[in-house]
């Protein structure tokens, strides 16, 4: 099972804590209120019963007492029902068979021993309080007090307390949620900043002034980013500086090589071969240096403008002595895209070059659209790219396996890295898949380049 997040756990703990606290408070208040109300009620019932018992006793002291009339004369209201046990017979105001059975035996026994007694019972499902007062040896006066109202009060009280407890638990949860949100805000800021940095924005920093308790986190984070940015910039600049420094001697080599090349026919065979090797390698060296410099500065965003990509693709084909008829424009795609000309020209040139070197020549260049993205696909008939190489092939200085077996290795090893980087500069990406029917299909997606 996935471990719950810190926020969920803190929120749950707050909720449970609040619920426990609120529930025990509610329980205690309920019990205390209930007990005091019942005690109060018992005392009232007892007092009323003594008074009524005195009235009944007086009523019975006549010669021919009318028991029912005596009971009826009592001012008991609706809440009390008098019952008289006289000479083994039960008397009540009305014929009510349930009344006498409601009086428990042990209460009768207790009252029979000459002591007034109180007991809580249920009469026909309703709570009631029975008070027994001995009148004489043969007469006992009972009063049944309905506790229905009291019971209703308890129910309302219980409902109110439960509601309060639930609300307190909810508030606890909300407090926990809010507190963690507040507490985790610095972490959210760190995560946001880290994401920005991962996306290449090295200007992202944390504000060290937001919270004095988090100053250490912010300052050490910012320091880390500073050092990282510094190191990356230093590496980038080093690569660029090295490449620039190589340019001047390369100019000498290029010019000198062309002098040698012009005199090739005057040289003996061995010298001519050596001169040819030197010229070829200088050429490759030049391309390598140019690719390195391009890579060093291609992480800037693209400068988009309207570019006729079809014409650009045809030019790229012709530059490599390939037929311009390789280029196909999808019916739903316009020929003019909003892209950076130099980068797209290099993407096309490098993909075509790659197809020539490793794929046995390109089988087609397809220009199409995917929403607002322009899509460039270059296909070849070659051996394709194995699944494990499909990511690494866009890294620097990775060359196709075919290169090792063939020993050609004419490329700089930076061509596809540049393709990927130019695509990224357009907020797009480069991928390679199998071409249906064999070969590789390189696909470059350039978002926001079509209307």
């Amino acid at each position, binding site marked *: 099972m996935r471990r719950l997040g810190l926020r969920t756990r803190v929120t749950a703990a707050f909720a449970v804590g609040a619920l426990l606290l609120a529930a025990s408070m509610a329980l205690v208040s309920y019990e205390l209120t209930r007990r005091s109300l019942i005690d109060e009620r018992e005392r009232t019932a007892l007092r009323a019963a003594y008074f009524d018992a005195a009235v009944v006793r007086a009523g019975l002291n006549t010669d021919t007492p009318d028991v029912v009339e005596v009971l009826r004369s009592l001012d008991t209201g609706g809440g009390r029902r008098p019952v008289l046990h006289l000479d083994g017979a039960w008397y009540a105001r009305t014929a009510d068979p349930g009344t006498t059975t409601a009086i428990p035996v042990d209460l009768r026994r207790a009252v029979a021993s000459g002591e007034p007694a109180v007991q809580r019972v249920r009469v026909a499902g309703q709570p009631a309080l029975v008070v027994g007062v001995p009148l004489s040896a043969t007469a006992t006066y009972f009063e049944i007090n309905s506790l229905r109202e009291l019971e209703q009060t308890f129910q309302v009280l219980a409902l109110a307390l439960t509601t309060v407890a639930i609300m307190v638990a909810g508030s606890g949860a909300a407090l926990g949620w809010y507190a963690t949100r507040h507490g985790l805000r610095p972490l959210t800021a760190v995560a946001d900043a880290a994401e920005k940095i991962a996306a290449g924005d090295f200007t992202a920093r944390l504000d060290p002034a937001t919270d004095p308790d988090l100053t250490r986190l912010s300052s050490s984070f910012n320091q880390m980013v500073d050092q990282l940015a510094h190191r990356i910039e230093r590496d980038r600049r080093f690569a660029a500086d090295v490449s620039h420094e190589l340019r*001047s001697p390369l*100019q000498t080599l290029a010019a000198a090589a062309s002098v040698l090349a012009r005199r090739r026919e005057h040289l003996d065979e061995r010298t001519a071969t050596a001169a040819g090797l030197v010229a070829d390698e200088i050429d490759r060296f030049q391309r390598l240096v140019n690719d390195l410099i391009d890579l060093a500065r291609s992480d800037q965003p693209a400068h988009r403008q309207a570019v006729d990509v079809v014409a650009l693709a045809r030019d790229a084909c012709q530059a490599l002595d390939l037929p311009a008829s390789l280029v196909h424009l999808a019916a739903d795609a316009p020929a003019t895209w909003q892209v950076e000309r130099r980068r797209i020209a290099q993407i096309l040139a490098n993909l075509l070059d790659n197809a020539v070197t490793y794929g046995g020549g390109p089988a087609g260049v397809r220009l199409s659209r995917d929403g607002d993205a322009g899509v460039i696909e270059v296909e070849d008939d070659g051996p394709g790219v194995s699944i494990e190489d499909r990511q690494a092939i866009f890294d620097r200085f990775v060359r196709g396996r075919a290169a090792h077996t063939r020993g050609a290795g004419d490329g700089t090893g930076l061509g596809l890295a540049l393709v990927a980087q130019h695509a990224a500069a357009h907020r797009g990406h480069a991928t390679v898949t199998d071409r249906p029917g064999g070969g590789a299909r390189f696909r470059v997606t350039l978002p926001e380049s079509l209307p």
Partner: protein
Amino acid sequence: MTAVLVIEDDDRIRLALLLALEDEGYEAVGAATAEEGLRVQRRDPADYVLVDLMLPGLDGFECIRHLRRDDDVPVVVVSARDDTHDIVAALEAGADDYIVKPVAIKELTARLRALRRRARAGVTGPAPEPVPVLAFGELEISPDGGEVRRAGKPVPVTRTEFRLLCELAEHAGRVLSRQQLLQRVWGYDSGDERLVDVHVGRLRQKIESDPATPRHLVTLRGLGYKLQR
């Protein structure tokens, strides 16, 4: 024979360039500093000047400004620096083209030939048929005379600026893209569009009464440039 002056402080590069250019049929002369180069050019003017930017003493930018003050010889920067800042600064100083080292000799000579094609009509010889003077308000362009006048007064323009202006004037009222201008004026199949932008900017300084809000040489965003009345 076409003469090329190479102003380059690195002895080996200068020597190799001179050898290679001579192989290609140019009469090549070298100079190790800007001062020496300017002296040589004044005494014995070459048809082209190649300038490095990082020079001891007077730097490449100053050297270009001095060359521009004297005449309209095509100036090509050959530098290892490729920052936009450097390229724009060199072009604004008056360079006609900017080439990043290392450049193959074939490429270098191709660019020099392209520069030659856009040399002034009056310099390269008589035009087959006379082209009338083109007027754009107070601006007058005479393609045959190689002359630009504003309100009757001659405007000093370089060869490249003149070719650019003529190209736009021949297609008056129509938009030419930067790539089209690169192809027609510089002779490049594909090249750095900053070249066009900087030259247009320089032309505006000369032919517009308010270069910040041009009336004749207007930009059409994302499309290119247009010359209008």
